[in-house]
């Protein structure tokens, strides 16, 4: 089975993202299951970044580190990334950096043959396609799509550039390169987390988003802002995160499904607003895209370091839900679920993403968009003679109307209040009634939560507990270890709070596998389910978990 990893290494501004995206698109158009992930520095030009592409026939949406093919756009890139090249792998570069470099002088060729250095990137794309033994025409289709808008001149030059690169590489490596990627029948969506999350929001009927830019969350609002008028979604760049969450609450109060997005520091600023959502029972969805902290930390890197913070975010006591999608398909559906849960229980729902999920492109066979859909939980004004926004009910959920849509008056109050929403100081009756009403919702919410996904646990004696975006890596690790005879399985949580009841297989040893330094899922499971985790596999250097990382750590600690 084909499983080939390409790494494109270079500085910000040198075009590795363009190269990577076009090549990934082309491979996808060829019918392959492509997975890409990126690691980059927090700067606009310079530094050393990489774009990794994994190509297979069937999807394995998990990151790999070791490269079969490494394209270095400069000497520094080589110095940083050459260690990733597998024995026998192909190094492609402008100049000969090491022994056996496959030299394709992209820039020189661009200048010489096409008159402008700008075409060097497309030459590189062509060269990689040549190394991979792709068919030219799929590449040309993709280039057509990519450059059509820029006019026939530009398109023509790019097609020519690709051809130049292709031929140069093809000629140079026909003997050395084992790969061949002929067109095949596969057809996958190639989608990043930051594309699937907003598409899920659209599907959920989101009508309002306010956010303040913060890596790696910004892509979500950028996606929607681009299509705001087409989709009828009001998009606002807020002056700060406090404004963002409060705007979303205002819009939600007025009946719009509303959300915001941010990362750790911005989320910290929203915490008072989360508590406000809890008290006013105004639903809101918050996408928390994690990056390593504390404070500013590593703004462009990945982590799962905010789990316990998210679960406990907000002063006072109120129900909230925390979800953490495993991949873009899951993210799409989790967004629908987030809006539905938020509306059904009138609570804040936090959807935890991270830089890895946000920026990586996954191959999805089918989004199965019917698997979930938006549900309306608004009450009908005609059903009420007298309407009380905070009516005490059996399940704690009060019928919700929106202001202005009928003659009924609708309140939201951040103070402790009576059924009408007016400030109360009645400690004897009203206060306990309201405290209990809100907490009754927590119990119903808990029953609505999904248990973890089980993978090869039935006969497992070692179980990896994991959550969120690492599912692909953990699952692949399980497969690798199983091949070696290790009796491992996986329990993977994507619904983290409140925790659904789980029965752990008896006698199995529990491991936690997390992209953080303090084993937060382990703490959460101990707190929420009373279960004790024996071992941990943790990574907190800003890079995503990979199957091989997990396998190595397993062997070290088993």
């Amino acid at each position, binding site marked *: 089975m084909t499983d080939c990893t390409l790494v494109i290494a270079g500085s910000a501004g040198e075009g590795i993202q363009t190269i990577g995206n076009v090549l990934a698109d082309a491979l996808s158009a060829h019918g392959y299951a492509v997975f890409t992930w990126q690691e980059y520095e927090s700067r606009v030009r310079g530094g050393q970044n990489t774009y990794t592409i994994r190509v297979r026939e069937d999807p394995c949406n998990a990151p790999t580190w070791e490269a079969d093919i490494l394209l270095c756009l400069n000497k520094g890139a080589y110095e940083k990334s050459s260690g990733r090249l597998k024995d026998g792998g192909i190094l492609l570069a402008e100049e000969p950096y090491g022994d056996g470099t496959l030299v394709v002088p992209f820039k020189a060729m661009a200048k010489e043959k096409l008159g402008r250095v700008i075409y060097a990137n497309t030459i590189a794309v062509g060269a990689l396609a040549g190394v991979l033994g792709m068919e030219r025409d799929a590449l040309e289709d993709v280039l057509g799509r990519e450059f059509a808008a820029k006019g026939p001149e530009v398109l023509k030059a790019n097609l020519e550039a690709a051809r130049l690169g292709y031929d140069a590489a093809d000629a140079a490596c026909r003997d050395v390169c084992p790969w061949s990627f002929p067109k095949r029948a596969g057809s996958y969506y*190639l*989608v990043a987390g930051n594309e699937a999350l907003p598409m899920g929001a*659209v599907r959920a009927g989101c009508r*309002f988003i306010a956010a303040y830019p913060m890596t790696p969350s910004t892509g979500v609002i950028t996606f929607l802002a681009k299509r705001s*008028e087409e989709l009828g979604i009001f998009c606002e760049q807020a*002056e700060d995160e406090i404004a963002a969450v409060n705007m979303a609450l*205002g819009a939600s109060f007025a009946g719009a499904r509303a959300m915001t997005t941010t990362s750790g520091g911005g989320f910290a600023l929203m915490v008072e607003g989360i508590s406000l959502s809890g008290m006013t029972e105004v639903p809101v969805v918050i996408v928390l895209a994690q990056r390593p902290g504390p404070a500013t930390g590593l703004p462009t890197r990945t982590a799962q370091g905010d789990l316990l913070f998210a679960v406990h975010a907000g002063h006072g006591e109120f129900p909230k839900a925390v979800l953490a999608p495993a991949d873009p398909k899951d993210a799409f559906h989790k967004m629908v679920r987030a809006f539905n849960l938020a509306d059904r229980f009138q609570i804040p729902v936090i959807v935890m993403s991270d830089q890895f999920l946000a920026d990586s492109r996954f191959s999805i066979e089918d989004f199965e968009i019917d698997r979930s859909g938006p549900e309306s939980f608004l009450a009908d004004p005609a059903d009420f003679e007298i309407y009380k926004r905070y009516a005490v009910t059996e399940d704690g959920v009060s019928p919700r109307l*929106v202001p202005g849509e009928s003659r009924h*008056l609708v309140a939201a109050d951040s103070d402790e209040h009576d059924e009408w*929403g007016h400030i109360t100081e009645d400690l004897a009756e009203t206060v306990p009634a309201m405290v209990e009403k809100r907490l009754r919702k927590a119990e119903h919410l808990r029953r609505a939560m999904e248990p973890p996904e089980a993978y090869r646990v039935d006969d497992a004696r070692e179980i990896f507990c994991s959550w969120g975006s690492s599912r692909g890596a953990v699952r692949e690790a399980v497969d690798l270890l199983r091949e070696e005879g290790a009796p491992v399985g996986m329990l993977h949580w994507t619904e983290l709070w409140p925790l659904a009841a789980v029965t752990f297989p008896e006698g199995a040893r529990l491991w936690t596998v997390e992209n953080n330094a303090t084993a937060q899922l382990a703490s959460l499971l101990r707190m929420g389910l009373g279960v004790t985790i024996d071992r941990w596999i943790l990574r907190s250097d800003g890079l995503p978990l990979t199957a091989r990382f997990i396998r190595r750590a397993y062997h070290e600690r088993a």
Partner: protein
Amino acid sequence: MNVPDPFKNDVEIQWCPGCPNFGILTALKGAFRDLRLEPHQVCLVSGIGQAAKLPHYLRCNFFNGLHGRALPVALGIHAANPALTTVVTTGEGDCYGEGGNHLLHALRRNPDITVVVHNNEIYALTKGQGSPTTPVGEVRSLQVHGVEAAPLNMPAVAVLHDAAFVARGFAGDPDHLKDLLAEAVRCPGLSLVEVIQPCITWVRRPVSWYKERLWPVPPGYDPGDKDAALRVLAGDDGRFVTGILYRGPKRPLFGERFRRETGDEPLVRRGFPPKSSISALLDNFRMGE
């Protein structure tokens, strides 16, 4: 003949008896009646403070949110349902202190809402600390040798940024205030109405002290003249210029373009998008055919 006031409710009012906030409440109810609004067409938004309790005392929709955060909530409400008459009732601590950033940025956006700032030059609900408008030298519970920082002049900042409508009224003159408020609501764009609201518990100056310092804009004053407005506001030291101080030039409204392109109806009525539009979106991400 007595027509019952549709905006009157029977919630127990938690203000001190005699507090000038009552005058603002009266004026606001009057303004809504004069504008022939009905309670369900109005949404009051507030933060926390004595001023911010007002929405509880007036029959209409309301969102009483967090200290300092009324404006973003109001913007969200207005974006979602521009048909609602959205009015923020806030204190100067709420709006110029904790929430100062939101006022600055609301001025940039020019939403069609009215912001009524009860300015009592004090944090009243928390018992008398200096606020962003307390005069220099005044002794307060946390400024025991007198306030050192200079007061903010947010009406002038509003003028500077071409707010649609800037006015100042006096809680002790609800009739005049009512007209200012009605005019503020009528005016498209952001209307800022600062109301001098003497706190009788923590400030305890006689009403006469205020009356002497009220300084109505002279007849013939042109609220369209920005320089003049800045001059009266920046040069009012110790006095309170009152009246309609400024009417800014026509500017785009918050959300205007969105509504022009997508329609006026409240977002809640737009329903869920058809599945086909989602499939179309997703199809952008499939390279093959």
